[in-house]
């Protein structure tokens, strides 16, 4: 008896085991394994149609898995309907009862659960205070802004006292500024209520703002997961590097392997890169990535041989002014374009298009990707 209680206490909030979901020939999810700890703010990040929403909905019970299991607090709930699970969902938009007031919307779930009207409304009013909706009790959804409507959804979900909140692109319908504000509010709300939040988005800035941990989902696969900072700084997979941050992607062949690092031939330049535990063989095609803000630009002077393993030569293309930063586009001999991003106005004396330039970086800034 006591052993099982301890087991459930220690069990992670969500455990997805070998989960697949097929729609006819379409494989929306392929053998996904994922563990989310209780009290974590977890983000599923990825391009549209990559399967992240399917994963969220399968966790919530809106889809039945084709294969695999969904364990919530250590119990297999793969085949329970949404209302029998400790999860609740916030939808993209257009998910309020239009004929009910805000108070009725928020308290409806409690009434359905059999709680008497007065108690349900008191509880709903308290939750409306938490999400910043006090004073809106008697409004109808169409009298609210997009942000307020999403708050109503939050209150309606949180008032149920379930301990895993699923958010399916909750800010997608809001304008940019409001989205930023709501992001922070969501983060603070999660810290306040202390339950597990699982948030689906395709917006990396949104993901970085709210997440404790991020998982990248693309093409039905769980590509990579880790702490938000690690995903940004040191992605392992090529896809992660191309999706998160503004990375330069280079491809080349391994020309030399020695100890912890290897040398990669990119458009005739020999670049030295750390292996970070990855296995490489001589002649293997690999990918390199480097964040554009870590690439420095200087004029090629004297000898045209870069040769130090941490720089590459190219010809200057153009400068794109972006306000805070300026992107300098440089074309490599093999035609690939690389970007060096600097704080605007830091460089006064810009090269003219066609000038030979040298791009260089700190040795640890460049990363190797074998997959």
């Amino acid at each position, binding site marked *: 008896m006591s052993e099982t209680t301890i087991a459930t206490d220690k069990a992670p909030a969500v455990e997805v085991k070998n989960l697949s979901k097929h729609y006819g020939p379409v494989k929306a999810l392929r053998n996904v394994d994922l563990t989310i700890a209780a009290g974590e703010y977890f983000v599923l990040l990825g391009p549209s149609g990559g399967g992240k929403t399917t994963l969220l909905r399968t966790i*919530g*019970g*809106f889809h039945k898995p084709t294969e695999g299991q969904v364990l919530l607090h250590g119990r297999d709930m793969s085949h329970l*309907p*949404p*209302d*029998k699970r400790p999860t*609740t*969902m916030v*939808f*993209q938009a*257009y*998910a*309020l*009862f*239009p*004929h009910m007031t805000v108070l009725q919307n928020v308290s*409806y*779930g409690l009434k*359905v*659960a059999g709680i008497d009207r007065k108690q349900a409304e008191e509880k709903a009013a308290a939750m409306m205070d938490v999400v910043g909706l006090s004073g809106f009790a008697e409004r109808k*959804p*169409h009298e609210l802004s997009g942000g307020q409507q999403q708050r109503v959804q939050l209150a*309606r*979900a949180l008032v*149920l006292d379930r301990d895993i909140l699923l958010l399916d692109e909750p800010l997608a319908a809001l304008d940019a500024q409001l989205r930023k504000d709501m992001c922070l509010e969501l983060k603070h709300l999660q810290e306040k209520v202390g339950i597990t939040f699982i948030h689906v988005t395709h917006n990396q800035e949104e993901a970085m703002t709210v997440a404790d941990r991020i998982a990248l989902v693309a093409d039905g696969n769980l590509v990579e997961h880790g702490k938000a900072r690690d995903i940004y700084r040191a992605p392992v997979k090529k896809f992660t590097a191309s999706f998160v941050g503004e990375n330069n992607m280079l491809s080349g062949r391994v020309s030399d392997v020695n100890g912890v690092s290897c040398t990669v031939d990119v458009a005739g330049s020999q670049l030295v890169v750390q292996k970070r535990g990855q296995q490489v063989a001589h002649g293997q095609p690999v990918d390199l990535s480097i964040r554009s803000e870590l690439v420095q630009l200087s004029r090629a002077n004297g000898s045209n041989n870069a040769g130090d393993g941490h720089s590459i030569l190219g010809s200057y293309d153009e400068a794109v002014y972006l306000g805070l930063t300026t992107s300098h586009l440089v074309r490599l001999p093999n035609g690939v374009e690389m970007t060096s991003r600097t704080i605007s106005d830091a460089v006064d004396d810009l090269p003219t298009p066609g000038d030979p330039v040298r791009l260089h970086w700190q040795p640890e800034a460049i990363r190797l990707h074998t997959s």
Partner: protein
Amino acid sequence: MASLTTNSPGGAARSAGETSAVWRERVGRWIFYLPLAFMVVFFAVPMALTVVFSFFERTMFWMEPAFTLFSYNNFFFSARLENFLTSMKYSALAVVICFIFGFPIAVFIRRSIPQVAQHRVILLFILPFMVSEIIRVFALRPVLQRNGLVNTTLMDWGLIDEPITSLLYTHTGVVIGEVLSFLPFIVFAGFLAMEAVPKFIFEVCDDLGVGHRRRFTDVILPLAAPGIFAGAVFIFVNGLGVALLPNILGGPGAVNAGLIATQAITALDFPLAMAVSAIMMATLMGLLYIGHRLFDLTKILTPLN
């Protein structure tokens, strides 16, 4: 001075151009009143005349101006009133049956058919209207009659020993005809009404654990009510007014207001026909008023915010 006061040829052309622009604008403004004029001449005036004529006195072949309640007397104190009320009852029954069959179809189309295909499926319900209504209704006779399709099938299966004779030339026959003729309208109305139901609402119901009955009474019905009411009124009024159905499928006593008026015209009692029409109009307006007070019918046109 002279150059200022004399109209140059260019000036004349310009003023001519201005005049035609002014005219175009004036005509443009009035052209929007054309439909209104059309409705007044061909709709409002005849309706008003219907009421006026209903008070006229009957002559041998036409009527003459007077103010008499004779026609109303003739209607309210005869079997006609009873027939009228009975036909109201059966029209209401047809509405209920249409709703029971038609609304679930509308909900099904909205919920279970991919969005791209929804309108095509709805179009299928227009197909019956490509066959003349007389033919469509008349085709029910060989199905419903004494030795028709329904009876022979049921007897072949051994479910009944004797043919059911109440299927045709009775109220049952008329109601069957009404349901078959008007079912598409409740499907259309229901389909449009379901537009007022937001995209993710059924999933929210799943999440909150709202059962099927509650989902219907608490969510779908209140949202779809204005549309359903509009469809219901349409069917009710047609059940009351379309003479064709009881004419072909009805029989003694199984008539409706439309057929009563038609019979009055055949008997050259024009004021009576007008009175029946006026009573029907009053009934409809009463219904619409009640509906508007209950559901705010203007919502039908603004389903989504």
